[in-house]
């Protein structure tokens, strides 16, 4: 999902000397009893590290996620659509800030996390490296990308780490409008002219597979699932969530009168689930590595915004400093 990079191989972490077997057992007992872990509680160093990585990747994804849709704010077809899109993109910024705030409770600074994003060291979701070439893409993103995000984030509301769980509850409350406005755009296009309907189908064709990739690698190859499940950071596996998403979304496409771009997609009466074709994992790993259509553009845009905002941050700080000096006088 927004933290697919987590599933990549990394160096094995050395156990913190403070992580004695007794402490680890006591910690696991708290998790098993469904207790929440709060910032000042003792936690295994690997639990802290996993959360910092997962939460910061999630926050970065929210921030970079503003770019594909931001592309259409100035060209939204009506004032109503423009106001909606502005509000949605502003929400994404807010979601990034909630999660950065939560991550900071683990003893890292937002400035350091942002620096890692800007240098290209930190990962964010592969989905935001695809271009938004038509207005229908804005509809497809709301419907499919936010739909996938909700599927992933609802279980995170029950995550064992209190600040992450609370941030997710806020995010989920707000995200529902995001998905509905996207579906409404698709509905309007599908009820419109043939050309508009073709545009909707074209957007679906391009966004469907990348949205399935959002759930991360298949369980067979995912690196971090088991431990995250034991710690109740993760509640469902990548494949479980992906299946739920397909089951929920295919009927919505049917209602629109659109076809999923998957020849192998078929409803299995016995299991009650949709079977779907093989995901192009090669594409997924390439995008994650930085070779997607827009990876460079996204990072350049973030770096430019950061650089161009520097004088504002410094001026605000200088003003605060002057006021503090005055107050002290």
């Amino acid at each position, binding site marked *: 999902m927004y933290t697919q990079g987590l599933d990549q191989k990394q160096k094995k972490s050395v156990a913190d000397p403070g992580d004695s077997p007794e402490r680890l057992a006591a910690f696991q007992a708290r998790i098993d009893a469904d207790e929440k872990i709060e910032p*000042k509680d003792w936690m295994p160093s690997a639990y802290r590290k996993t959360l910092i990585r997962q939460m910061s990747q999630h926050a970065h994804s929210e921030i970079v996620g503003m770019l594909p849709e931001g592309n259409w704010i100035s060209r939204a077809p009506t004032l109503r659509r423009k106001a909606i899109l502005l509000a949605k993109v502003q929400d994404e910024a807010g979601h990034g800030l909630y999660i950065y705030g939560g991550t900071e409770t683990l003893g890292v600074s937002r400035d350091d996390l942002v620096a890692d994003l800007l240098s290209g060291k930190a990962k964010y979701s592969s989905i935001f490296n695809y271009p938004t070439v038509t207005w229908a893409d804005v509809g497809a993103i709301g419907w499919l990308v936010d739909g996938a995000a909700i599927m992933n984030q609802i279980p995170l509301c029950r995550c064992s780490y209190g600040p992450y769980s609370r941030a997710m509850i806020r995010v989920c409350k707000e995200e529902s409008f995001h998905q509905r406005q996207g579906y409404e755009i698709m509905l309007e296009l599908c009820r419109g002219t043939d050309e508009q309907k073709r545009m909707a189908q074209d957007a679906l064709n391009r966004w469907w597979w990348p949205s399935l990739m959002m759930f991360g690698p298949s369980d067979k190859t995912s690196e971090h699932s088991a431990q995250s499940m034991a710690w109740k950071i993760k509640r469902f596996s990548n494949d479980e969530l992906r299946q739920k998403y397909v089951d929920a979304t295919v009927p919505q496409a049917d209602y629109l009168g659109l076809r999923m771009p998957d020849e192998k997609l078929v409803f299995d009466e016995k299991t009650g689930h949709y079977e779907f074709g093989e995901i192009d994992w090669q594409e997924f790993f390439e995008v994650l590595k930085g070779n997607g259509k827009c990876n460079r553009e996204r990072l350049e845009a973030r770096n430019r915004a950061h650089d161009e905002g520097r004088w504002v941050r410094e001026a*605000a700080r200088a003003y605060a400093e002057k006021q503090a000096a005055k107050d002290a006088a």
Partner: protein
Amino acid sequence: MPRNKLQKTQREEIMSKQGWPLYEVFIRARAGLSHRHVGSIHAADKTMALDHARDLYTRRNEGISIWVVKSADIIASDPIDSDALFGPAADKIYRHPTFYKIPDDVENI
């Protein structure tokens, strides 16, 4: 404390951070309720902290009043002391009304 020394401390506090200091945000959802902690925000000063808290935490009528407090100014208990602080309350069951046996015939008590 000499004035320039005080200034220097405040200056250091502000400048030592790479960015802006952290504030904790408390929102009163409606009259009659207490302010409740909702999260944190970075800001250069208190005015900006209020503005940012408003933009971030009240986009959907979540509140009618905001408090912001510098995170560094909050004095918090440590979970290590939890037993010493909160343990003693557990064996003082006589502080609860159910500890006392009053005959059913006695009313309004």
